[in-house]
């Protein structure tokens, strides 16, 4: 597709409803599907639209494309079950852009629900022993994601001299934002020393370098510019989107110290949006582990390759810092159900509408949301703004 055609789609769709499940955190009384439904109900109420207005359902998780519409009582004309990991919901925004502009559907519902901690309705997770991960990685003790993200962190430290203290700065700054969010799971301030003294998990990560594991859900309602004009909420415009993949299993990552998928998704989003880096008031960067926002800052061009460690030093991303990042408290301290990308988008929408109370970034007009899928396998980026 030509650049002109992409650029012409800047600001042609808007997020007009955004919400999370009633509660995020530990919810052993709720299944994954219940969390999808809570998010969908709350987002449609936020938009002032009815379930009967929904023409397309984009969702993913353990479910097929048929499951969510059935559970919610929707008979959509288009379903999308794209599963690329935690950033899938950001990619769904790009898919919604295509759908709406092609005239396939005008009101699109994107949902997420995951019982990541309580594991209710989550059967079938894990790698089959005959899959590539099952044959070539599982036998060597990869366990959870921490060991595999650690492989990228270790090479980044080797190539660029990034330090564990710089990684810890991310956890400390993110916790400061969580302290301002009444819904956050972790609200006790921490120091760099606390991170370095927390339990060892998988070098170079200690416990406080790792995200939480929680239950939660959320949803977005997305529509055309014409329809957005009639909705009750101030539209949050989608200026640019991008998605990319560079590997599936971490051992095949092309460059462990450079997030190639993020470079590609970010370039596409920035180019479509016409935005400059200086226009960005808020960064919502998926923080499954402390290395991930550092890789994102570099790949998206907020600093040079290898400069992410120094960039986050001195609490630059904390409340009051020059670069507000992960203002909900992040996957590190707010919530992380497993596929965290939805929460990046909901927080960005709420910040751009000025609804964030104590943690509100004053005058925030333009935000960037960027996520990882798999083990830095995929990336998706969206640039959102109050202005078209």
């Amino acid at each position, binding site marked *: 597709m030509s650049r002109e055609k992409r650029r012409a789609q800047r600001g042609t769709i808007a997020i007009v409803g955004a919400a999370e499940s009633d509660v995020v955190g530990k919810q052993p009384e709720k299944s994954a599907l219940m969390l999808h439904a809570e998010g969908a109900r709350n987002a449609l109420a936020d938009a002032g639209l009815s379930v009967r207005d929904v023409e397309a359902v984009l969702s993913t998780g353990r479910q097929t494309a048929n499951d969510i519409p059935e559970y919610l009582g929707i008979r959509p004309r288009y379903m999308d079950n794209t599963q690329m990991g935690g950033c899938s919901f950001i990619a769904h925004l790009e898919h919604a852009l295509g759908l709406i502009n092609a005239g396939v559907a005008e009101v699109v519902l994107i949902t997420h629900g995951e019982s990541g901690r309580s594991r209710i309705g989550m059967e079938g997770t894990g790698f*089959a*022993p*005959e899959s*590539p991960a*099952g*044959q*070539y*990685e*599982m*036998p*060597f*003790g*990869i*366990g*959870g994601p*921490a*060991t595999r993200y*650690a*492989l*990228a962190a*270790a*090479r980044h430290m*080797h190539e660029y001299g990034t330090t564990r203290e710089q990684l810890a700065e991310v956890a400390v700054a993110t916790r400061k934002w969580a302290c301002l969010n009444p819904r956050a799971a972790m609200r006790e301030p921490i120091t760099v020393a606390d991170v370095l003294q927390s*339990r*060892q*998990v*998988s*070098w*170079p990560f200690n416990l406080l370098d790792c995200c939480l594991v929680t239950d939660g859900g959320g949803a977005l309602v997305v529509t055309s510019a014409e329809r957005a004009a009639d909705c009750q909420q101030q539209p949050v415009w989608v200026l640019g989107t991008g998605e990319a993949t560079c590997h599936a*299993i*971490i*051992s*095949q990552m092309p460059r*462990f110290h450079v997030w190639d998928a993020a470079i590609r998704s970010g370039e596409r989003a920035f180019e479509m949006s016409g935005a400059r880096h200086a226009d960005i008031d808020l960064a919502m960067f998926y923080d499954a582990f402390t290395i991930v926002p550092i890789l994102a800052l570099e790949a998206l061009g907020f600093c040079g390759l290898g400069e992410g460690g120094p960039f986050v030093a001195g609490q630059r991303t904390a409340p009051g810092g020059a670069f507000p990042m992960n203002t909900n408290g992040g996957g590190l301290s707010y919530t992380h159900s497993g596929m965290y990308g939805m929460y990046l988008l909901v927080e960005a929408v709420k910040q751009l509408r000025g609804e964030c109370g104590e943690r509100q970034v004053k005058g925030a007009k333009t935000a960037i949301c960027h996520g990882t899928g798999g083990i830095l396998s995929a990336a998706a980026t969206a640039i959102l703004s109050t202005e078209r």
Partner: protein
Amino acid sequence: MPEDYKAPLPRPTPESRPFWDGCKQHELRLQRCRDCGEAYFYPRNVCPGCLSANVEWFRASGHGKVHTFSVVYAGGRNPPLELPFVLAVIELDEGVRVMSNLVGVPADPEQIRCDMPVVVEFADVTEQVTLPRFRPA
């Protein structure tokens, strides 16, 4: 051979069978494309460089370097080695990368360096399965 090895085991598929059979014979096998010359891992029926199906197996040197690693202190249920152990991605001399475990060195990040030379060894973990591991060369 360990009595009751509980860590996850690979289940070979048609395209990977020669690799796992090779490990059992303590031979590290890779594939190469006869059209574009690219050596590659993991086993596939097509070359990931050019999608040619004209591919062949060959015996790898077994030498390489630690490309990156982690010292795993909490690795989930049934780790393959006693905790802590070293998870590593090895860049083989043939230019491909494989995940493995680094053995014969303390599981201490101070004692391991990216790019340190290593050589393959084989661990017969069950009657059926042999895993490639690497030790300092």
